[in-house]
């Protein structure tokens, strides 16, 4: 872990130097992408290159052809979707047979993310929103741009192109803002997310049965974990990118402070939701445009089902999507009936609903999900009969003082962060060099970070 971090800093410094010092900045980014992939998994490189080049050439065919535009378009989208299905099937079968392992996903690293970019590119060229790119290198670099390759954010070619065609000019404020943002991401990942990870593992990867409250609480902890893990990655990606003078779109806007599920989806994984809205929701809604309610409802259903499929083929993802479909439908009906609840209650209900749905999202299989959620609806076994052994000891991974200390420490970090999230975020976006901010972040990471046996980024498996 630490060794990797050292290599990584060396890699970034070298790439930054070359990026600003040479005239071939696109080539630098191209090789940076390849090197980055090779460092994590070199076997992922061929699929990335083949896919990007496939989308690149097909887009030209779509634009050039007068009679077979639709054929090329359908062929391209179908090929990409079939690949996505095959990839998800492969992951699903690997998981079912041998359990999840990152090694098994070696050649498909970042696949779900760059496939979305390729689909969007073909779609935009087809409807004439953009012209096809003429330089293959530019397109491939946009797909293989290393800060976003593992877990996004999801971007379109257009969003990336404007940065790549401009001549890079080194600006001190970009470097500082990038470092500030990167430090926050590392803090979120190493200090909070990886501290919470063993708590979720204790419930979801266990064969034991837990009380309903303990299970529901595990859903809440996973919600926090996935947020800090994923947003931590995105902060780091945005931070690194900013050092190169490239601004990637934001992916989160304090989602855990949402007062409704609708609001939650506007603030959570924003770039994926924007992609889904643009390329799934709008086309579906358009079909049912004669009835506003049906149009919204079908739009939601298909979009969330696509989102579930994008995450994986397991039944658990489908159930997760159904939960959100139900929540959004209820909200739609409540909105229609002009029904309102006090803010405190809607906040509590939103967090509860998201956490409950996440029980399915995190469960490794349907049997586990059934076991975990089953206890929640059992009147007899909802509350733990002994709080220390059946609740605190479960999440503390033991009932010894050290375990309890870790349990409370993790919670303190997570809650204090959420309480001051807006202030912390604005500090991390600052272009000013603050010794206090950086010293605090570095020391917190060095003292409280999890360095031994840290977790992989959750979204790098999708």
């Amino acid at each position, binding site marked *: 872990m630490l060794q990797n971090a050292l290599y990584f800093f060396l890699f970034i410094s070298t790439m930054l130097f070359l990026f600003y010092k040479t005239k071939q900045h696109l080539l630098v980014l191209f090789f940076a992408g390849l090197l980055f992939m090779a460092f994590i998994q070199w076997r992922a490189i061929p699929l990335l290159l083949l896919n990007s080049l496939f989308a690149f050439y097909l887009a030209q065919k779509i634009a050039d052809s007068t009679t077979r535009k639709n054929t090329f378009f359908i062929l391209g989208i179908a090929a990409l979707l079939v690949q996505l299905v095959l990839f998800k099937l492969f992951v699903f079968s690997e998981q079912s047979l041998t359990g999840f392992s990152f090694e098994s996903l070696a050649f498909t690293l970042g696949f779900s993310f760059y496939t979305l970019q390729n689909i969007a590119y073909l779609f935009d060229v087809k409807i004439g929103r953009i012209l096809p790119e003429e330089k293959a290198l530019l397109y491939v670099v946009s797909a293989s741009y290393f800060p976003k390759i593992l877990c996004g954010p999801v971007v379109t070619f257009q969003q990336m192109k404007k940065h790549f065609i401009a001549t890079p000019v080194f600006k001190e404020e970009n470097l500082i803002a990038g470092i500030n943002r990167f430090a926050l991401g590392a803090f979120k990942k190493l200090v909070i997310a990886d501290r919470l990870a063993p708590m979720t593992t204790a419930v979801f990867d266990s064969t034991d049965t837990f009380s309903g409250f303990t299970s529901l609480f595990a859903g809440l902890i996973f919600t926090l974990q996935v947020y800090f893990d994923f947003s931590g990655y995105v902060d780091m990606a945005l931070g690194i990118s900013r050092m190169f003078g490239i601004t990637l779109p934001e992916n989160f806007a304090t989602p855990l402070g949402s007062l409704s599920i609708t609001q939650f989806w506007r603030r959570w994984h924003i770039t994926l939701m924007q992609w889904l809205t643009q390329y799934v929701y709008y086309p579906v809604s358009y079909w049912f445009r004669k009835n506003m309610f049906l149009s919204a409802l079908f739009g939601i259903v298909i979009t969330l089902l696509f989102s579930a499929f994008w995450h994986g083929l397991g039944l658990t993802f489908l159930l997760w999507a159904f939960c959100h479909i139900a929540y959004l439908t209820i909200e739609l009906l409540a909105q229609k009936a002009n029904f309102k609840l006090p803010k405190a209650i809607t906040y509590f209900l939103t967090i509860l609903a998201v956490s409950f749905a996440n029980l399915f999202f995190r469960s490794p299989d349907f049997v586990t999900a059934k076991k975990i959620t089953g206890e929640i609806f059992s009147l007899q076994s909802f509350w733990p009969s002994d709080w220390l052994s059946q609740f605190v000891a479960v999440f503390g991974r033991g*009932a010894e003082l050290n375990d309890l200390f870790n349990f409370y420490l993790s919670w303190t970090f997570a809650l204090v962060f959420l309480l001051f999230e807006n202030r912390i975020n604005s500090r991390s976006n600052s272009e000013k060099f603050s*010794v206090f901010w*950086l010293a605090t972040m570095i020391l917190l990471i060095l003292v*409280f970070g999890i360095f031994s046996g840290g977790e992989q980024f959750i979204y790098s498996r999708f």
Partner: protein
Amino acid sequence: MLKKTLILILIVVVAGFAVDRFFHFGLLHNLNLKATYVTEGKIATNVLVDGPCEPLFTIDPAYLQPKIGKTVYNLSLNHSDFADNFLHIHLYLKNNSAPQYLFLYATPESFDTRFNTFHPYRFAAYLEDSIVASTIADNDSVYAAWMKLPLLRYTYFGSQLTFPAFQGWKHWMENKETPYFVNGHQPHPSARSLENPLHFEVQLDEYGNKPEDASNKSFVWDKKREKYFRKILQIAQSKRIKVVVYESPGYSGILKTQANRKEVLQKIKNTAEEYQVPYWVFDSLPTGDKKINFICPLIMNSSASKEFMDTLALRINKLR
């Protein structure tokens, strides 16, 4: 920017050293850590017991001492392998007078890397000791690469060391002289003492399977485990300590399904005999036949532990 960067580096380095000292001092004064307690040099025991959680939970010196008329200290630690045991014994012998006897727990599981492990963080405050450093390097190369760096040598295992460091400061301020578990025995977390018996049934076997479909997987003999097993015997004999290698009763319902258990037991016996060390196996005790006597296949509950210690005491008394 350069000035600020230098100030930042200075702050991080100074604060890093300060926190490093905080950890170091705290860990060196935390008497609940066995490595620390043994280096205090306050244990003068006749019998030293070492091994993983099985002896930790089942051998209570307070119960055994009166029966054998000798002082006993339990040096065992949860999930520890032979390298872990070796370093604890090394630190013990470096700072205390040698005991008369060493009882070392060893089963086929002890030689298989799927069971127990080495915990480098237990020795983070003693990295200056060359034997500690070389054993860590031999067992955890990743940590070994970073253990020379101030602060990181402690915070690399922050989850395990932050609380003990704070606790150590508390012990120092309170001028504490004995650890929480005075004689080293730690009752199973669910049972407070032998007087508060624990009755459980085996839920899963050592491989994580249900007892009724207990696995027939074979044990895999690990050379490194063997190396540290031999090192323990050597270091003990160099101090003229009489060593007894032993295995406490296990739940026979599961043990009999393990394909090469007998062969591995024989191999342990042969290895011990190379040093003229006896290997005591208690598989004929009726304790092993009843599932209710066990928490897991190799750990007896408190009432069965008492029965076992009675038998062990008789055998120890015959040693004289």
